[in-house]
């Protein structure tokens, strides 16, 4: 899971790839439509999707003769779950300390 989280973030560090990712937020889309909507060639779109797929952020499925790409909610959720757990632990530690010995404060 650790490697996936780093890879997921790393995969979004390219501005064009981030634009592809953000377009997918709006809903499933084919490579052809992505290339039409964004200032990116079809081969470049395919390459970006490949990276996003490997990072677990998107997946594809067949719809007739074409393939549709869409966001993988589980992959994105992993990123947020990291911070979710992080802050749970940090705040639990803060609460213990803040409620500790309060004599003379």
């Amino acid at each position, binding site marked *: 899971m650790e490697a996936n989280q*780093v890879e997921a*973030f790393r995969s979004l*560090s390219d501005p064009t790839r981030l634009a592809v990712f953000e377009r997918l937020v*709006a809903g499933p889309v084919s490579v052809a439509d992505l290339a039409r909507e964004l200032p990116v060639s079809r081969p470049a779109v395919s390459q970006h999707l490949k990276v996003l797929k490997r990072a677990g952020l998107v997946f594809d499925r067949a719809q007739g003769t074409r393939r549709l790409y869409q966001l993988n909610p589980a992959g*994105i959720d992993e990123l*947020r779950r*990291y911070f979710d757990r992080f802050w749970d632990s940090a705040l639990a530690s*803060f609460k213990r300390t*803040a*409620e500790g010995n309060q004599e003379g404060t």
Partner: protein
Amino acid sequence: MTMVELAAFAPVRKSVTVKTNVERAFRVFTAGFDTWWPRTHHIGKSPMTKAIIEPVAGGRCYSAQQDGTDCQWGTVMAWEPPHRLVIAWQITPEWGFEPDLAKASEVEIRFTPEPDGATRVDLEHRHFERMGQGGASMRTSVDGGMGWGDLLRLFAGEAAK
């Protein structure tokens, strides 16, 4: 907003009620940062000796390391004792320091008095979408940093104490 949009970069929101007054809660959080911040959470190469939040807008959030270096991990964006603190979270996914504030996520902490003398502490960590922008952040990464999985396991251990 679609369900996936909500999930993708939605802020993390946490709330905890602390049995102490709001001034003390703010003080423990900031001046007393070193007394509760987990010792393992820093981006330095040697162990952390002290965790510091400089008590002023624009102040640095950093850890002092055993090898004598300081490792900054954030910047105070709003300093409003005893009710509000906003910190830019400047750690890259590769566990390095991100000097460009436009690429940093943000943590807002609010301290609100409760009727029984306790304090509700609300934390919001937001703007994760900024962290993926640009390739420059990857080049500032510190080598040999702790992986996120390791950090997770350490925090799980900390919370269990």
